């Protein structure tokens, strides 16, 4: 446990008054995916960590932003719970705040919701060095704009997360992984068919000539689905490797990640297909959907919608935080 709130506030106040910029940094685990940030100074969130409250019966955990995801996951598993969105935790180095700021969900996304979905509240500091709280620790809360979920995916462009409250989920009793030989095209057709059936799926992916799926639930439910879908049981470690981009196929051959309508017909550019078709790791960009080069934040591409610039202005008028993001005239 370490509380660096005062130091963080001091740093932001100083940056605000001296018109300098700050990079918000955890362990840097997402730099290979989203690129490096280079501000004048660094807010080091790794020294701001610890679980603040955890009430298993409330299905809510609140922790400081710099808490390693691995620590959060360990505390949850002890109580038979987990983060349903299963965010990537690259070599165990990802932090909770980094995960929420990046807004990246794991393979269970289409079935169990996104990481953003599970955000209930945040403590944050804006560019005026004002400490604020939005949302809370309750599931249903429509008081005020949903700033907590707006921050998920904003990559620190609007402020520094101090703490995050997340809704957690029970760990399914049984989790089994399966695969079968399949072309990408057949794979996508099956993914879409199965997604519309009441099956206990928590993963549907395709890579290297195989369709992979994961079933989770009570043992009877999993057994019934297993009988229905067939396939060969495989080592479940396929799924964390897919999540953390550790599969061999997700190396240098992949230049883009693309979110797309999940039924989109795959082509040779699709190296790996996750999210039941909705997320593609590709060797080339795609006309449909939204393509983002690996190693580059979607918030550095231009042109930037003037509305987003005004939202940035509303939180960080001095453009202190992560200055490379949301630049009006960024190089393409």
């Amino acid at each position: 446990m370490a509380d660096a709130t005062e130091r963080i506030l001091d740093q932001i106040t100083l940056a605000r008054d001296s018109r300098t910029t700050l990079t918000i940094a955890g362990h840097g685990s997402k730099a290979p995916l989203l690129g490096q940030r280079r501000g004048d100074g660094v807010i080091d969130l790794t020294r701001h960590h610890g679980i603040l409250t955890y009430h298993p019966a409330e299905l809510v955990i609140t922790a400081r932003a710099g808490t390693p995801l691995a620590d959060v996951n360990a505390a949850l598993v002890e109580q038979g719970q987990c983060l349903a969105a299963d965010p990537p935790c690259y070599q165990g180095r990802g932090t909770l705040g980094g995960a929420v700021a990046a807004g990246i969900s794991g393979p269970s996304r289409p079935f169990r919701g996104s990481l953003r979905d599970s955000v209930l509240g945040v403590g944050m500091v804006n560019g005026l060095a004002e400490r604020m709280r939005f949302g809370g620790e309750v599931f249903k809360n429509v008081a005020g704009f949903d700033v907590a979920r707006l921050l998920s995916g904003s990559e620190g462009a609007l402020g520094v997360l101090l703490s995050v409250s997340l809704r957690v989920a029970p760990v399914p009793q049984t989790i089994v992984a399966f695969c079968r030989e399949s072309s990408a095209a057949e794979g996508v057709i099956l993914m879409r068919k199965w997604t519309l059936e009441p099956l206990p799926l928590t993963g549907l992916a395709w890579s290297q000539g195989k369709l992979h799926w994961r079933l989770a639930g009570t043992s009877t439910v999993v057994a019934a689905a297993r009988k229905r879908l067939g396939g060969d049981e495989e080592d479940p470690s396929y799924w964390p490797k897919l999540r953390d981009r550790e599969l061999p196929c997700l190396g240098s051959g992949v230049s883009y990640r693309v979110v797309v309508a999940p039924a989109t017909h795959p082509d040779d550019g699709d190296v790996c297909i996750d999210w039941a078709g909705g997320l593609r790791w590709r060797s080339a960009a795609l006309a449909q959907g939204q393509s983002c080069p690996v190693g580059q934040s979607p918030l550095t591409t231009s042109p930037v919608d003037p509305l987003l610039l005004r939202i940035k202005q509303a939180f960080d008028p001095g453009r202190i935080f992560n200055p490379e993001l949301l630049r009006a005239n960024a190089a393409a």
Partner: protein
Amino acid sequence: MSLEPARAELLSLLGPDLILDSAGKRPYETDGLTAIREEPWAVALPRNRETVLQILDICHRHQIPLVPRGAGTGLSGGARPMREGLLLSLARLNRILEIDLENGVARVEPGVRNLAISEAVAKHGLFYAPDPSSQIACSIGGNVAENAGGVHCLKYGLTVHNVTGLVYATLDGTVRTIGGSSVDPFGFDLRALLCGSEGLLGIVLEVTVKLTPLPASKAVMLGAFHSLAAAGNTVARIISSGLIPAGLEMMDKRAIHAAEDFVHAGYPRDAAALLLCELDGTPEEVEADRERVDACMRSEGAYRVDVATDPAAQQRLWAGRKAAFPAVGRLAPDYYCMDGTIPRSRLAEVLETIDRLSGEYNLPVANVFHAGDGNLHPLILYDANVPGELERVEAFGSRILSLCVEVGGAVSGEHGVGVEKLGPMCDQFTSAELEQFHRLKAAFDPDGMMNPGKAIPTLARCVEAGGMHVHSGEEKFRHLERF
């Protein structure tokens, strides 16, 4: 603001779809919060997106404030009209544009009724999960504006969890699309910000919703308890056991009696509290979950547990809960429905406090609520014709909401802030937070023309309210000293 030239332009654009006479405007004077009424300057009933955009252009050029409205079922006065503002009804934009089975989504216009989506996709074994109690009438655009919940959101999520794409317009006429049939866009996720924004940021023109496979099997269970605490503890035990029921509802004695008198659902009249628990999934799953819920209920002291497995019996068990509001409405000339959320662990304590306050204010309360997610709906019974009674109800209500904030909850779980909860918002947020909300609104609506005066109180209002508390010699959370 120039009303006269705007009226002429709107009239030539809309013809009979612009309502200007008092009689025609009457149905639009109020939404579901009928205690608050106002005659709008004019009501526009456009039939398509192009006309909506032309209306926005006229309002923008003439600086006419705009109040958007869906089906008008909202419970917090979010669609309360303005005497010098245009009420923009989106009810006629009611086409289901596409049912995209391959991608598991439906694309609909904002005026489509919530239930109409589920009805349209039922033959494919699918449904749209959020089910606010007004689902027969309420529109999807209004659901987005309020981030509507419902009985089944414990398991299936709120509107924000089930909307994958939005097309919306800001007052300057810019149309933007966020997301679509892919589950998540990269970068800023403005979908979550627009869900629950109560028409302050933009006009929703199209919604893409996620379709969920219909469960193969269902069961509804009723547990009867001799105390509210035992029912509350059962809720915690069920959730802690690793089970997320499709729905988990609680009613107190007054609500049980009212419902029983009204629809004869077969509820036990001697119970101090009852729990209704809906389970769904595969037949095997429902069977296994039933045993677990039964054990949870009995171990916390349920003296009666009923299970309904066939649709008719299930409907009967739900009938009492679904008719609870009108049933309670028969007990007094008026009732005021509150909507706060609290951590489940504080349930018994908060209900006890509400009971004491009920005595203090001499106003009876019935409690019907979404216990699984800690969303309380205390119904305060009163008679608006008794002078001073409405003011007493409002004072009581605001103490309940302050209590919700104090125990770590929120002043609105699903009904929105509208005009009704502007005061309690001052309890929940600091001035820096409220100013942040106002700056965020200004990013979308620099002139403050979109549903002005709703959802986010001005600082001046909060200061004034705070001043009133000081004047009467009480602290902000003044009720706490009493317990």
